[in-house]
């Protein structure tokens, strides 16, 4: 426990789960390589297959097909209790009839470790989560945050190479959640084991993870670092799920994207074929506001419809091309005098925007415009 244990690599190969009586697979040919010691987050809305994937890795759910490799060894046939992975649940899942110490001793007793070693390891584990004085308490006598820290200690005390977490902070209030995020990051740094973390909270995913796998309808949409996913989304879903964005529907035409007769440069137009339908994704902080039409390209006139103050910044909600919502973020240092109802010009650098394959219909559905865009 005190020495850093080496994390294991975890690889998913075409992992699929079909529940009986359900036509669409819960997880559909998911493939993912997780490096030893990596903090990998499985992110997605509820029902996207992220928890089912985690349950298959843990051995709670039997995979319909595909492989799970831990350190290159297929573990699909192993029952959960032989997989040697720590697991932290959203509902803590502490044994209510055992004290914190007894809970943490439990996995060690299963491994036939001597009583004196158990005592030492439990003490170290309680210290790791800053609960040295709480060993004699029953779960009922502790707060939610303390219970979850005991659960983390219990999942780490037997030095697993992989720690699985299923929305571990989901049941806690915001302040506590942020404190535990910091603690989890510290534990990950200190112990160096592989973390696989399931959440639907994109902020939590962005701040904690080395890499994120974004799930949607049972499929992995994109895997990448927080920055990659945010700045270079590969699909409309990823662009919409992670943070705010403006998406303009257009068509590729001679190396540019044509949106209703106006052309825009993007960072990756060249990867598309002529006449491909794409969406141009621009992040709010990449857009600047002008009162006069700027001379450079990549600008569009916009009607300001709403301004939302967020303290350190403010968010402008605009309308471009008669009905497409555009979101602009201004930091306090660069506030303009714009008011709702004003017409302004929005501009951005071509390399700051990215094109994703998407039809106009899908984009309008994703941004919440019901009537057909004319």
């Amino acid at each position: 426990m005190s020495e850093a244990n080496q994390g294991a690599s975890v690889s998913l190969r075409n992992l699929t789960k079909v529940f009986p009586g359900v036509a669409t697979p819960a997880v559909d040919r998911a493939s993912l390589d997780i490096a030893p010691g990596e903090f990998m987050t499985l992110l997605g809305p509820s029902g996207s297959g992220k928890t089912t994937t985690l349950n298959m890795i843990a051995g709670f759910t039997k995979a319909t097909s595909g492989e799970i490799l831990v350190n290159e060894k297929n573990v699909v046939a192993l029952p959960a209790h032989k997989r040697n992975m720590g697991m932290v649940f959203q509902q803590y899942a502490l044994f209510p009839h055992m004290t914190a110490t007894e809970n943490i001793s439990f996995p060690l007793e299963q491994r036939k470790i001597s009583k004196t070693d158990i005592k030492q390891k439990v003490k170290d584990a309680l210290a790791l989560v800053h609960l040295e004085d709480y060993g004699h308490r029953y779960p009922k006598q502790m707060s939610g945050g303390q219970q979850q820290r005991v659960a983390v200690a219990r999942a780490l005390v037997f030095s697993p190479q992989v720690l699985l977490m299923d929305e571990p902070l989901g049941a806690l209030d915001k302040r506590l959640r942020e404190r535990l995020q910091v603690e989890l990051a510290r534990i990950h740094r200190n112990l160096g084991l592989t973390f696989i973390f399931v959440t639907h909270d994109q902020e939590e995913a962005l701040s904690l993870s080395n890499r994120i796998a974004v799930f949607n309808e049972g499929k992995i949409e994109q895997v990448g670092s927080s920055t990659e996913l945010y700045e270079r989304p590969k699909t409309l879903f990823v662009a919409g799920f992670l943070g705010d964005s403006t998406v303009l529907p257009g068509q590729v035409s001679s190396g540019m994207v044509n949106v209703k007769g106006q052309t825009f440069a993007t960072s990756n137009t060249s990867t598309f074929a002529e006449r491909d339908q794409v969406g141009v994704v621009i992040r709010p902080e990449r857009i600047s506001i002008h009162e006069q039409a700027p001379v450079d390209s990549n600008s569009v006139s916009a009607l300001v419809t709403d301004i939302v103050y967020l303290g350190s910044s403010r968010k402008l909600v605009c309308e471009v091309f008669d009905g497409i919502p555009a979101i602009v973020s201004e930091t306090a240092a660069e506030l303009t005098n714009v008011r709702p109802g004003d017409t302004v010009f929005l501009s951005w650098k071509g390399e700051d925007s990215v094109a994703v394959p998407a039809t106009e219909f899908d984009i309008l559905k994703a941004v919440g415009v019901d009537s057909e865009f004319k």
Partner: protein
Amino acid sequence: MTETRAISFWLKFIGAIVSVWLIAPVLVVIPISFTGRDSFEFPPSTWSLNYYEKFFTDPSWRDAFVTSLTLGCAVAVVSVIIGTMAAFALVRGNFPGKSVINGLVLAPMIMPGIVVAVAVFGVFLTWRLTGSFSGFLLAHTMLAVPFVVITVSTSLRAYDSILDLAGASLGANWWTRTFRITLPLITPAMLTGALFAFVTSFDEVVIALYLQSPIYRTLPVKMYASVTGEVDPTIAAASTVILAFTTAVILGTTFMRRKKNVGS
């Protein structure tokens, strides 16, 4: 505030009256058991412990009492084992005919006692099980199992199966998970079931009347014989002993449960 206090007062008041109404007739046996005469005179004009002496020394009374105690304990143990396993199957299992089996398991509770008694008597005569410990055990266990199934399956339904997943992830196999996590958590329900089972057997008189033999009879049968055949206040002493015994058991379990709730 005053209104709720007033309601709470009247609630307690009416509750007390109803309790007295229900319990008072039962309590009449207590003074009668201390009578000095050989009649059911109430209130007794003279007092003595004669009938307690008779209850604990007369072989026919003492044997019946011991028979009922041992039988009740055996029924409690056997029906807790069978009933708990049945509850696991009925709550966790998924097999064809589950609802039919569920109905069959609970059927003894709603079958008229006399019908069951006649049927059991007929079958046990051919099987030569009448007048024996095993015959009584079999018949009473059948009556007692539904109580265990109901209490244990209620508790199992409330049991959060995520604890089993947690146990598995920590390296515990099915066996360990069942004996170290599930069973300790449903123990109160099993004990309640055992108590019900014991009382079911201890209290049962219809089947016991049919299955009795001159050498193997339970306390209720002995009491029935006594009250129909003779005027003997020993029956009042027997009733008082039973009353004291059941009160102690019920208070004991209530107290234990309360103490446990405070502890954890």
